[in-house]
């Protein structure tokens, strides 16, 4: 090959590199290893973690352990899906394009919205993008955030806002009091952002808030961090939401320590050209046959560069495929049935934990996660329960370390994967730890 190129050595091809920056010796890093050795080393690291499935485990707060059918992981590993690129050449990527079109339809159906994009990084970044989109739609730059918004979503939105010059008005988190967000909307407000069920697990009807926002020319953004809830509760679209930003991990995707997950993003038809992210659209080919293409790319950075709706170039393709497959397997009966089991498990768990002396469930309503007040700091209780082989939930203080009034609160989630025996173990050990 060197002869064909006409150079004496491969190094000669690097002649444009400044001598001072050229490194002739390998770096101070280990040499290559065989599969066997790499596998051994990584398995050793994996063994230093406690898999949620190996013990009774009740963590939620934006990431949920659901059962993923074996079919899902089987299909997403097919090389034709996994090792393909963004479908820029539609003639040879109709597979990717069709499933993304199916994904968009599923997301629109479950959220009750008109249209959805082909996925975002995750729920938090989707929320930040929703605020930016509301700014573009309304040509305003002040967003009101509910105190019930997941703290990571709020922080992500605040970070983006800070650098984009957007004003954020955020209500305080409170597990019991109802907040009056309508009062915070003024005529500079682009949107009000709420979560349902909220961070503390409460389920709310935001129809009145939607009306209040619309009256002031602002949009309502509804965030969903546990998408399975939409099998059981009124979807945002029916409450007047203009944008839905959600986390889709629960369907088809493992916890994986928080990533990669899959952001869902849906809106009304009329705002579609302000929507960020990839979009697949239906069209016909030269023979008149139905087919799919990436579309409305004039919104995107590779066409509009600094004028694009966002800088996002990637979606969460393979996670979206996992979502699509799992959702297809579930179908109407399965998705609503899954929601029903989740709620029943959580309700049963709440009942068992409420009977532990000193424990109060604060929620007037919940789906599969609720907030408990404990007689001592929740973080200490959780740590103590690790010693008893229970992953008890998420102390609110993990996400709000700076709010002492929340330090005794524990978020507890149950899904279809928790057995009644797990719940009994949790209740018994909690009682022991609180004694």
């Amino acid at each position, binding site marked *: 090959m060197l002869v*064909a190129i006409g150079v004496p050595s491969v190094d000669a091809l690097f002649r444009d590199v400044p001598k001072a920056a050229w490194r002739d010796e390998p770096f101070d890093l280990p040499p290559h290893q065989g599969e066997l050795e790499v596998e051994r080393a990584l398995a050793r690291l994996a063994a230093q973690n406690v898999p949620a499935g190996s013990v009774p485990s009740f963590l939620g707060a934006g990431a949920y352990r659901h059962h993923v059918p074996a079919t899902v992981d089987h*299909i997403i590993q097919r090389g034709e899906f996994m090792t393909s690129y963004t479908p820029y050449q539609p003639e040879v990527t109709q597979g990717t394009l*069709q499933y993304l079109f199916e994904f968009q339809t599923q997301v629109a159906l479950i959220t009750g919205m008109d249209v959805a994009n082909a996925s975002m990084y995750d729920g938090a970044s989707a929320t930040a993008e929703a605020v930016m989109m509301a700014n573009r739609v309304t040509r305003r730059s002040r967003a009101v955030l509910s105190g019930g918004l997941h703290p*990571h979503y709020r922080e992500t939105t605040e970070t983006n806002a800070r650098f984009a010059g957007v004003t954020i008005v955020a209500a305080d988190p409170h597990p019991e009091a109802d907040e009056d967000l309508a009062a915070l909307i003024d005529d500079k407000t682009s949107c009000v952002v709420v979560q349902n069920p909220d961070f503390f697990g409460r389920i709310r009807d935001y129809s009145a808030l939607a009306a209040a926002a619309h009256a002031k020319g602002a949009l309502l953004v509804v965030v969903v961090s546990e998408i399975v809830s939409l099998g059981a509760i009124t979807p945002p679209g029916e409450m007047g939401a203009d944008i839905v930003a959600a986390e889709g991990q629960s369907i088809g995707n493992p916890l994986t320590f928080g990533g990669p997950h899959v952001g869902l993003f849906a809106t009304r038809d009329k705002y579609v050209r302000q929507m960020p992210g990839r979009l697949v659209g239906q069209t016909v080919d*030269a023979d008149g046959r139905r087919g799919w293409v990436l579309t409305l790319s004039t919104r995107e950075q590779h066409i509009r560069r600094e004028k694009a709706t966002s*800088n996002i170039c990637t979606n969460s393709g393979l996670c979206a495929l996992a979502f699509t497959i799992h959702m*297809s397997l579930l179908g109407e009966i399965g998705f609503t049935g899954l929601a029903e089991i989740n709620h029943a498990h959580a309700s049963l768990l709440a009942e068992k934990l409420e009977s532990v002396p000193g424990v109060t469930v604060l929620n007037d309503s*919940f789906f599969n996660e609720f907030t408990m007040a404990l007689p001592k700091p929740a973080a200490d209780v959780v740590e103590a329960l*690790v010693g008893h082989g229970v992953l008890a939930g998420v102390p609110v203080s993990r996400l709000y370390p700076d709010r002492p009034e929340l330090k005794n609160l524990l978020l507890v989630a149950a899904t279809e994967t928790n057995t009644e025996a797990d719940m009994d173990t949790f209740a018994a050990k909690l009682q022991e730890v609180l004694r």
Partner: protein
Amino acid sequence: IEEPLLFERDSEGRCGVDLPAPPKAKNRLGTNARKGRIGLPGISEPEIVRHFTRLSQKNYAIDTGLYPLGSCTMKHNPRLNEKMARLAGFADIHPLQPVSTVQGALAVIDQLAHWLKVLTGMPAVAMSPAAGAHGELCGMMAIRAAHQAKGETRNKVLVAESAHGTNPATAAACGFTVEAVPANARGRVDLAALKAQLGPDVAAVMLTNPNTCGLFETEIREISDAVHAAGAYFYCDGANFNAIVGRVRPADLGVDVMHINLHKTFSTPHGGGGPGAGPVVLAAALAPFAPLPWVVHGKNGFEVLEKAEGAATQALGRLKGFHGQMGMFVRALAYMMSHGADGLRQVASDAVLNANYVLAGLKDDLTAPFEGPCMHEALFDDRFLKDTGVTTLDVAKALIDEGFHPMTMYFPLVVHGALLIEPTETESKATLDRFIGVLKALAAEAREGKVDKFRAAPTLTPRRRLDETSAARQPVLRWKPEEPARTAAE
């Protein structure tokens, strides 16, 4: 065979999963229970396996052939990495578990960070960005935060003309105004022009190196010196890091901040458009502004800093939920451990060798706008198609009928009708020879005036050319049930 949409299938009341009966428990949903149907079809598991298997067969992929998309780096994705990412100790851990129960996960993040820091020569790395563009956002935010901390207001960012579209988009998303830096006749940044554009209002310069023409910026040190002298930071787009990994440390080129696409240089799969991961390496001046969370060494092992306090007081905030793309970290680390310091050098050498082999093989039949050697990708323009009536797009589509995925087309914008070819190091000489042969033959056919053939291509694919204009004009972005009225009429 045509594959209907999921929503168009025979589906009465089926379900592809078998769920246990819910236990008896009080309904505590409150007053907002869902009413009415969602409209999801119910399909059996066998039908779903078949549906997606058939869809997959309509895709081209690295596993089926050469995927020479310049600047996208479609290389082989080792299956070991997939297996490792699926270990329960990585895939089945919750991001908010007590840190004592996830020490191995934090060690993966720490080890991957170490590899990235050594390979780039940079002292710090932000791990949470979810993709390359997200990493750009992180990097530009860090630059803005650093200037703010110094009390400086610099609102302009200079971006090379040949840059990826994400560069200007990112700068704009951070509230900067964007100004293009022109390229010179050698396909590199015009140093004199750049110097003229630099000033006290410039916050940063964004370049890609090797650049999107596949060329190493020969005056890179002069550029970075000028940028620094002007009080600005040098953002390097790391999309092409695979050309120099193990050979050149960006720190030694004067880079202040660079994102790294783990799915390009470090082989995590592209997955039809994601998920990616875009860690960002940072010079000492920018390191304090790295976004949360930080993984740090503590008394009892690894700790996670999740708030802007203590060592992380200046952290610029949070870019996504939780800790970043753990699943991608495991894959990338497995790749790095498999290749080692020696193997990664070889990656760069082989990638550059393969690209130059393609350049040498095609330079007499296609037209190369700049002189070689190139780095990891070979750029051609459309002068060889002049007066043939055939376009770059036509060549790309004709290539499909020969069994190859097209190269990147019409990018970079600095040359006309660009064809950007990146073979990567994982292709064999035999494959490259076949690819070169096919392109030579197509160039000859274009010269011979076989315009009709080109215009008709592709003909052997599940679909022929698709009408993108009408798709954008009247967007149909989801399936909708047929109107009940119409159904009744039938």
